[in-house]
């Protein structure tokens, strides 16, 4: 069975929870090589997403992600706001009006999201940005989908790859975003945007696993 709008809203709710719980951690990461606001901005943004979902419950996964995109765009600010806003908007566009999403569609939506971030931010792999979480995640998702995994499996693979990708930013020297001003001094710290991307994709996987459990589908 594919993922429905319930998964999408669960994902966004778990994302909001994750941003709230990891707010201080993301601030701390940003404090080291940026300006101490990433956790605060993401938390504020996802609170706005929750409010938007409450005001007008979406009918499709695409509609849910589009609502999230608008809320993030208008409430996060900084670099992450337009980047995540674009990511969610491109994912929403990629999903279209579909009410159920299969593994391939899901992987394609993640790729569209990533491509949106690249289109806006022009970062390449290894620049020590959220792309370093997105790109391995997309690769892993596509591989899983091609290998016949179900949506839960696709998201599990994406989340794990994003986490590994985020950790792999630690030794890198930033070449995009605020951390790039630090030059060599940016090495030795995890990129906050890569860390938040990993958290968001982990939330996506958890939401899928939860939906799957509810509807009685085996998550594995």
């Amino acid at each position: 069975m594919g993922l429905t709008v319930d998964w999408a809203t669960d994902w966004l709710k778990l994302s909001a929870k994750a941003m709230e719980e990891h707010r201080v951690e993301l601030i701390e990461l940003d404090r080291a090589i940026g300006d101490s606001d990433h956790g605060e901005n993401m938390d504020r943004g996802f609170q706005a997403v929750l409010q938007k979902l409450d005001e007008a419950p979406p009918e499709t996964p695409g509609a849910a992600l589009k609502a999230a995109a608008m809320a993030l765009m208008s409430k996060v600010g900084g670099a992450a706001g337009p980047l995540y806003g674009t990511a969610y908007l491109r994912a929403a566009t990629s999903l279209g009006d579909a009410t159920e999403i299969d593994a391939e569609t899901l992987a394609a939506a993640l790729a569209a999201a990533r491509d949106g971030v690249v289109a806006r931010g022009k970062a390449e792999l290894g620049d020590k940005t959220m792309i370093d979480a997105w790109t391995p995640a997309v690769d892993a998702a596509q591989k899983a989908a091609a290998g016949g995994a179900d949506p839960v499996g696709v998201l599990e693979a994406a989340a794990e790859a994003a986490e590994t990708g985020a950790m792999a930013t630690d030794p890198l020297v930033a070449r995009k975003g605020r951390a790039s001003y630090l030059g060599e001094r940016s090495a030795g710290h995890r990129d906050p945007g890569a860390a938040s991307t990993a958290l968001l994709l982990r939330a996506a996987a958890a939401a899928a696993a939860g939906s799957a459990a509810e509807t009685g589908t085996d998550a594995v």
Partner: protein
Amino acid sequence: MKKLINDPRSVVDESVEGFGMAHADLVDVHTDPIFVVRKGAPVAGKVALVSGGGSGHEPLHAGFVGHGMLDAAVPGAVFTSPTPDQIIPATAAVDSGAGVIHIVKNYTGDVLNFETAAEMAQAEGISVRSVLVNDDVAVEDSLYTAGRRGVGGTVLVEKIAGAAAERGDSLEAVAGVAEGVVRNVRTMGVALSGCTVPHAGVPSFELAEDEIEIGIGIHGEPGRHRIAMEGADAITSRLLDPVLEDLGIKAGEEVLLFVNGMGGTPLSELYIVYRRAAQILAERGAKVERSLVGNYVTSLEMQGCSISVLRLDDELTALWDAPVHTPALRWGM
């Protein structure tokens, strides 16, 4: 963290509200989304100037809204660029039909949010031109960064472009003046202490008693490198020399010298820096025709300063001298 605030999450709202109350003769404050416009805007036939950015740099930008400078300012959360849903209505509110200039400090977040806003405002039929300020010589302008940051020089761009708009220049002409300032201004800063973002609650960085950060931006981020504390004269050389180098200031040239406080350094110390900076310029044969000393582009309560030099010509000097009436910069009226 000890601050004169009520709640870290209401800092910007309450501060801008108070600002609006204190300067009700000059500005109107819009809430939800939050932005500040010049009283009586749009000014018929005048090109409008809009700037904005993260809060925490006060008086930048809202303090520069008024006659001869900005028509609107859009404050984001502390150190967070504002969002398109603030920038778009601010842009619309001040457009008289003559078009709007967005003055954007070069940071990824500011660029992306203003870019989106400009696109959407254009779609609504407003002519928008963006001018990017990137005066920080601490950041090498290479492929391996997001480019030079916009820092202290921003206030000079806003003042001078504002004067061009006020005298009736066209959209292209005002943008040209602004870009001329950007080409001719360079800045470099030093921090003696970090600053504490209210929602973070801990200092942006910690410096030992004998350490300073050279080449800082204006967001409490660490600088390019950390060195042992030095006397004010030595620090002044460290900041000013690369600025003059980069600008290629030659004997006989006229400049504006701007010593900007980061917020927590006493004015008396800024004048000690100004003294040495003016001496260095004199030694090089440059003429300091205009000066500005004070806290104009700050990083909350950070201790430190930046030095900006703007190469002047007769037109820039005349535009600098033109009347301005804003909460934080005022003369001639």
